[in-house]
């Protein structure tokens, strides 16, 4: 049943599926891979030397390098203009590219049209599997690195990933280029296996097959594409062995199995394999000790450290900051300074413009007029990840956690800015990469412990209780070692006891020298912890001062309770 060609095709299918996995793992759906593969196959067949002259293996190796390069170039050329597209739009645009390439190849003179070009058969099962092993190795080693986690974070929540300092555009383009390179490998291998490059092999059906293989195998585990390809290649073989010959039964059963896998095995076949993650043992005292809240900024020598502004320095200065949505003035001419070591409360009725204000401050929303200069960058003009890199870290009013990642992994992503890239060193098994990964893990575990959530380190973020999700968001924001921490309603949905613990935590952060901007509806909490309070109503600052003064201000009382009639 497992003939030589079946074995080869399992490997080829898996390699092609990896080119889909490369982008799906980062949350993008591209259907252009067949186009990359055909560009690569034709380029290498035309440019590679004759096997009779340089030998089979040498010719194939050269062809593979050419193909990989051509695939990458094609992916980058397509990726640059289409990177702003999302979801199905990206899928359709890339599909359109692949079809355009196919039609072009079909009609050009030098490609041999529909007949294609004939190619010597060089690829043996062994060669195909060696290439597959190399591709799988790349994805295996890159998974648990800073780069791999950044891609997963982008898949789960692009906005939050940007706020953690991840350059979303560059990472997405990187994933796209990887897809192009792998698809290029596939195109060349395919040509040297079936002895032919013809446009028909790189059509819409091929793209769908690759996507289906990747989805069936699972897009969150690196073995997924291999499992998917084995499953889908072997099914027709089994049917043939069972003597099922009727033309329609085979595609019907294949469709049925595909449906069953998608409906009943979310995450694909490989999604059954549990993800392992080790929680580091902090100071040999075992996990679960939440009492020790030693400074999280002091995390050993292996992390990049940030220079924090001395206590009392201005970290953010807003002048005349305004934001209009159509005719609605969400924020109007706000002037404000935030200093290191200060815990500034921002309160105001619903719709007062608090969230819009902090969105401008963290660079997510560009102001209509006025400027916000934060830690040396101009928010709104600099991209979100640049603002984060300057030292602004935040939580969101509605939790934006990376739901399918564990709590610890969420915090690891938060540490993106202070940890080192380990991808290249991990590919080479350098011991320093292991040390750096260990340091990142320890740092993340400390941040978790600081918010008292170390016990939940391996729990999926989406499965945590609401209060725990809020605390996890704070841990994730802390992991970036920020100079300015923005907390958008952290106590929402917490009970009295939890809110009390939270107040204690927030106070201790400011005492460590951080600037903390706290948006909160729980006025009791704000009065208890804040040094200074700013009250916003209808987008304007109506009062600023010590918590007790502000609470007594008649305009504030009016804003909250209305005027006495």
């Amino acid at each position: 049943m497992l003939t030589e060609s079946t074995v080869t095709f399992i490997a080829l299918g898996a390699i092609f599926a990896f080119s889909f996995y490369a982008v799906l793992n980062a949350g993008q759906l591209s259907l252009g891979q067949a186009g990359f593969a055909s560009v690569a196959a034709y380029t290498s067949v035309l440019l590679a030397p004759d096997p009779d002259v340089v030998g089979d293996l040498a010719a194939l190796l050269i062809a593979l390098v050419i193909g990989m390069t051509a695939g990458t170039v094609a992916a980058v050329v397509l990726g640059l203009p289409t990177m702003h597209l999302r979801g199905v739009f990206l899928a359709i645009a890339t599909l359109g590219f692949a079809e355009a390439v196919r039609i072009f190849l079909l009609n050009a003179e030098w490609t041999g049209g529909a007949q294609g070009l004939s190619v010597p058969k060089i690829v043996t099962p062994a060669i195909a599997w060696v290439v597959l092993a190399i591709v799988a190795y790349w994805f295996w080693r890159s998974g648990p690195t800073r780069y791999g986690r950044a891609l997963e974070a982008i898949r789960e929540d692009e906005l939050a990933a940007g706020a953690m300092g991840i350059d979303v555009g560059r990472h997405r383009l990187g994933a796209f280029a990887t897809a192009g390179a792998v698809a290029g490998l596939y195109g060349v291998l395919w040509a040297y296996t079936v002895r032919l490059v013809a446009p028909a092999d790189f059509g819409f059906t091929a793209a769908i097959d690759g996507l289906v293989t990747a989805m069936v195998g699972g897009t969150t585990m690196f073995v997924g594409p291999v499992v998917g390809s084995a499953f889908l290649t072997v099914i027709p073989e089994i049917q043939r062995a069972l003597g099922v010959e009727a033309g329609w039964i085979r595609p019907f059963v294949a469709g049925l199995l595909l449906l069953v896998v998608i409906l009943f095995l979310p995450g694909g076949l490989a999604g059954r394999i549990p993800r392992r993650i080790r929680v580091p043992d902090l100071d040999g005292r075992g996990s679960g000790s939440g009492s020790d809240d030693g400074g999280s900024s002091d995390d050993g020598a292996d992390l990049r450290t940030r220079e924090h502004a001395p206590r009392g320095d201005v970290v953010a200065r807003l002048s005349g900051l305004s934001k209009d949505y159509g005719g609605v003035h969400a924020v109007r001419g706000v002037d404000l300074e935030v200093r290191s070591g200060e815990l500034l409360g921002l309160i105001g009725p619903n719709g007062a413009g608090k969230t819009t204000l902090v969105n401008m401050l963290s660079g997510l929303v560009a102001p209509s007029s006025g400027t916000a200069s934060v830690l040396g960058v101009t928010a709104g003009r600099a991209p979100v990840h640049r603002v984060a890199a300057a030292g602004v870290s935040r939580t969101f009013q509605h939790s934006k956690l990376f739901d399918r990642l564990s709590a610890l992994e969420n915090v690891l992503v938060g540490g993106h800015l202070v940890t080192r890239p380990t991808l290249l060193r991990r590919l080479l098994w350098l011991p320093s990469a292991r040390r750096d990964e260990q340091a990142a893990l320890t740092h993340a575990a400390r941040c978790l412990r600081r918010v008292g959530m170390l016990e939940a380190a391996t729990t999926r973020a989406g499965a945590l209780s609401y209060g725990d999700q809020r605390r996890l968001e704070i841990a994730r924001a802390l992991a970036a070692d920020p100079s300015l921490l923005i907390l958008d309603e952290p106590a929402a949905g917490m009970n009295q006891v939890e809110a009390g613990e939270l107040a204690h935590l927030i106070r201790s952060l400011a005492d460590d020298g951080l600037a903390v901007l706290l948006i909160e509806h729980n006025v009791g909490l704000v009065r208890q912890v804040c040094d200074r309070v700013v009250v916003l109503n209808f987008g304007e600052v109506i009062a600023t001062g010590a918590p007790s003064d502000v609470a007594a201000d008649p305009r504030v009382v009016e804003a909250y309770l209305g005027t006495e009639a």
Partner: protein
Amino acid sequence: MQQLLNGLFIGSIYALFAVGFALVFGILDRLNLAHPAVFAASAFIGIELVTVGGLPFWAALPAVAVVGALLGLIVERVAFRPLKGRADAHFAGLISSIAVAGMLIALLQWRYGAETRRFPADTFPAVRFDVLGAQVTLLQVVIVGICLTLVVGLTWLVARSRLGRGMRAVAENPTAARVLGVNVDRVTATTFAISAALGAVAGALFAMNVNSAQLGMGSAIELKGLAVIVVGGMGSLPGALVGGILLGVAEVFAVQYLGSAWRDLIAFALLFGILLLRPQGLFGGRRARQV
């Protein structure tokens, strides 16, 4: 003039097909890739109804629409409803609808074999007119008429009727719609049924127009349908109509001036240009990103 009219005829079929895509995408935010399979299936079923069942063309079309609606209900039940609430519902819905499409095509192959089927020659009277110096057949006029009526009727339905209000409520926010007493499951199923019924009529008309039905006819029009909804604006019904006719006309002119080999490139050039310059499409509103 002749070219313009020819483009209009083929374009109106594209539009009718694409409207089905756009309806499901606009309301449920899902691409239903089983739509082309329904398109193909209904062409074969239409031919069988006429040849074996002896129905006249006029009676066969509504029958095909009913069959299409049933297929749409099955697609929704099997491929989309079980995925409700899953984090990866977007991608999974694509795959499950591809799976259902594969099964549907396999069943067609079982029932009708792999050969090309045709409507009998006398299904439709071969009447021709001269319009401004161009040749037009009665069939073409009827096709444009049916397509326009259905698309305009659907637009009215979505904009004005109680069902349409339910659809728009579900599109806006399914949870809120449910709280307000909209039966979300029923609205969803109805949307699929209407979408598939339109695709089915498009399939029968297409088979009539080119006088053949093949198993692969769905995949051939699938990419064009996708191009049309992108050009028109995902989920926009008038956009799908204008986009379809635009594509039909562009193709006909491409054949005349560039040669028939390049016809299929037009759809993708159009698609790409629109995506780069105006990603929301000609008629699509830009959706605000939520923070």
